[in-house]
């Protein structure tokens, strides 16, 4: 008798109909969006403040250096003493006063001072410093008889075109894109395992504490119950993830349309920089390249590998979670068994983040992409960089082999553990259960 579909259906429906699950599903994207919106909105308000900065330039060297922007107005004042200027600025409630004293090209830099009511923002000070430095450099170059235009002309922009021996083009942006792809895939798997693995564990514990387990397993094989639980919970998880993504999409669109808050750029300073950069033809070039490299990504491979490694890795870990749930009586007893499960998982993410960035095909990342407990995360991070098919296949076979073993192992523990009450199990007693 195959009751698997029935069990999956029940597990799925109980999860999906659970009140806290529903609340989590619909509330967390709202909370997330609300948080981002608040942060974005606040920093926008912060940056939108109009400021006026007075400039008292006694050296006369910087007459055309400061140009007004949307938020900042520069007012030059001339021929008044510093004290008078200070009190004027204070009276006018300007943001501050930039004072440049008398001096030649060498000594003037020592005389620069900024006066303000409160201590000024870091970005403004460094902006002013930059402007002054640049002007001074130009002036010094001229003083040394060099033409600034000429110097600008000598500036070269080098971008190394990367190409594999097979003729596949790549670039730095390409690498960033690949990292992002792999990183998101790996991280998604990591999150999925932790959230829904725990859910499986809790649901096993619930069956034990409510004492229904013996009634159920007099009708179905424990392994069927376990697999039904894993699959049903995963489907609920996929449903939740899908709703999250859709809701996040809808909400962010709605918010940016209604409130005009651009959630992608929370800082106007950066926005300006990006806009400036966009005008630069070099960057435009890079963007076309990025689009190209996106198209160059091994997408089919990526998607297929993503599904296979995701499912394999998830089953591997969730069966262990189910076993832990079966071994204990309540959630507080799970601690001692959680560490050995979480460690390889966290290791995988660290290895993925640190070594794959460094060298996607280096020894460490290659080895870890074969070890079944870390391979799903690490391999998913490596694949965008192009992993030979044989490696993927071998790693996948190892994963399937191990996952068959852990499911068998978990089923053994599960079968015995679900009927054990009252004893806090040790590793030793669990090993003994394997022989029952």
């Amino acid at each position: 008798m195959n009751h698997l579909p029935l069990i999956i259906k029940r597990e799925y429906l109980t999860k999906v109909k659970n009140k806290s699950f529903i609340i989590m599903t619909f509330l967390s994207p709202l909370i997330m969006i609300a948080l981002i919106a608040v942060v974005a909105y606040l920093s926008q308000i912060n940056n939108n403040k109009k400021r006026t900065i007075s400039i008292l330039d006694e050296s006369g060297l910087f007459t055309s250096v400061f140009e007004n922007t949307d938020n900042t107005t520069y007012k030059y004042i001339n021929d008044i003493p510093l004290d008078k200027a200070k009190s004027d600025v204070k009276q006018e409630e300007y943001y501050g006063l930039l004072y440049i004293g008398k001096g030649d090209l060498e000594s003037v830099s020592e005389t620069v001072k900024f006066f303000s009511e409160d201590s000024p923002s870091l970005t403004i000070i460094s902006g002013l410093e930059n402007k002054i430095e640049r002007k001074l450099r130009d002036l010094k170059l001229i003083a040394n008889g060099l033409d600034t235009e000429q110097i600008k002309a000598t500036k070269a922009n080098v971008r190394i075109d990367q190409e594999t021996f097979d003729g596949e083009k790549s670039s730095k942006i390409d690498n960033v894109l690949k990292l992002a792809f792999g990183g998101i895939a790996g991280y998604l798997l990591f999150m999925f395992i932790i959230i829904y693995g725990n859910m499986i564990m809790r649901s096993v514990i619930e069956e034990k504490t409510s004492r229904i387990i013996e009634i159920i397993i007099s009708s179905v094989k424990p392994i069927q119950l376990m697999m039904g639980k894993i699959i049903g919970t995963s489907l609920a998880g996929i449903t939740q993830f899908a709703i999250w993504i859709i809701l996040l999409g809808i909400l962010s669109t709605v918010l940016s349309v209604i409130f005009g808050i651009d959630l992608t750029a929370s800082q106007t300073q950066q926005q300006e920089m990006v806009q400036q950069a966009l005008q630069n033809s070099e960057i435009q070039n890079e963007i076309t390249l990025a689009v190209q490299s996106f198209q160059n990504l091994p997408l089919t491979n990526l998607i297929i590998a993503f599904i296979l490694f995701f499912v394999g890795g998830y089953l591997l870990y969730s069966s262990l979670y189910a076993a832990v749930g079966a071994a204990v009586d309540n959630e507080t007893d799970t601690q001692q068994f959680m560490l050995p499960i979480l460690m390889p998982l966290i290791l995988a993410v660290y290895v993925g983040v640190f070594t794959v960035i460094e060298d996607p095909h280096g020894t460490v990342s290659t080895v870890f992409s074969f070890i079944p407990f870390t391979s799903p995360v690490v391999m998913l991070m490596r694949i965008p960089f192009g992993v030979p098919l044989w490696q993927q296949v071998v790693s996948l076979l190892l994963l399937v082999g191990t996952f068959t073993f852990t499911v068998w192992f978990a089923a053994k523990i599960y079968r015995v553990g679900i009927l054990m009450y009252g004893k806090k199990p040790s590793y030793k007693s669990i090993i003994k259960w394997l022989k029952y």
Partner: protein
Amino acid sequence: MSELLIADSVSKDFGNFRALNKVSIAVPKGSIFGLLGPNGAGKTTLIRIINQITIPDEGKVLLDGRNLQPEHIRDIGYLPEERGLYKSMKVGEQALYLAQLKGMSKSDAKKQLKIWFDKFEIGDWWNKKIQELSKGQAQKIQFIVTVLHRPKLLIFDEPFSGFDPINANLIKDEILRLREDGATVIFSTHRMESVEELCDHIALIHKSNKILDGNLIDIKRQYKSNTFEVGLQSNDSKRVIEEIKSKFEVLPATFKNVYDDIKLNVKIKPGTSSNDLLSFLSSRAEVHHFVEVIPSANDIFIQTVQNN
């Protein structure tokens, strides 16, 4: 009478602990079979083996003459001692789910559930969650779920625990009615009064071994000691007692009746008729009370366990 279930020298080890040691039982069709024994004797292990929850290390179990196999799950209804239901699931949904796991179709399960719910007058529970019910109410649902798929073999492990006397009686009547409809019942309990009341056959398991089994009446016959409980009234009680003592083995007895009697347990020699004792007594005193002492299941239980 043919047997529905036969366990043939079944053994089970848990690590170094032998939970069952070559235990054989034979459960006749249509009987109520009491599986008795102190805590930790191995009853639950045997029941779990019959339910295919645990696999025996040695021996075999036959149901209807065939080795146990997965299809047999449909033929067995099991009410475990450790029982519960999904707390946050609705009564109806849950009962349907459990019935379907036993291989019933959804429509059949629904129809049967309606009959049972009407019988127990709990139709309005359908949409309640288990956590809204009391323990006894939830036990009723468990009982219904156990018997719903009309199994040939019903196994009840301490079925009356958690029920008040009224509901316990209701359940007892249902068990008897199910037996009348042709079901065979295995009944595991410590409560000897319900064994006395219900069981035709018993098996006593102690420290992983079966130490006694058979028809309850036969066993009682085997355990009775030809002792009679008598209550007599006489003007000269001292002399009467002396006379009886000279002819029979006599022990003091305690029982209650309305007379101020001489109360004795009198043992007669095998082969002596009880009439001989009665006429001997009636010739010397007025007999108010004359009963053969038949050992109760409880006495047999304690005596056998202590002797082992």
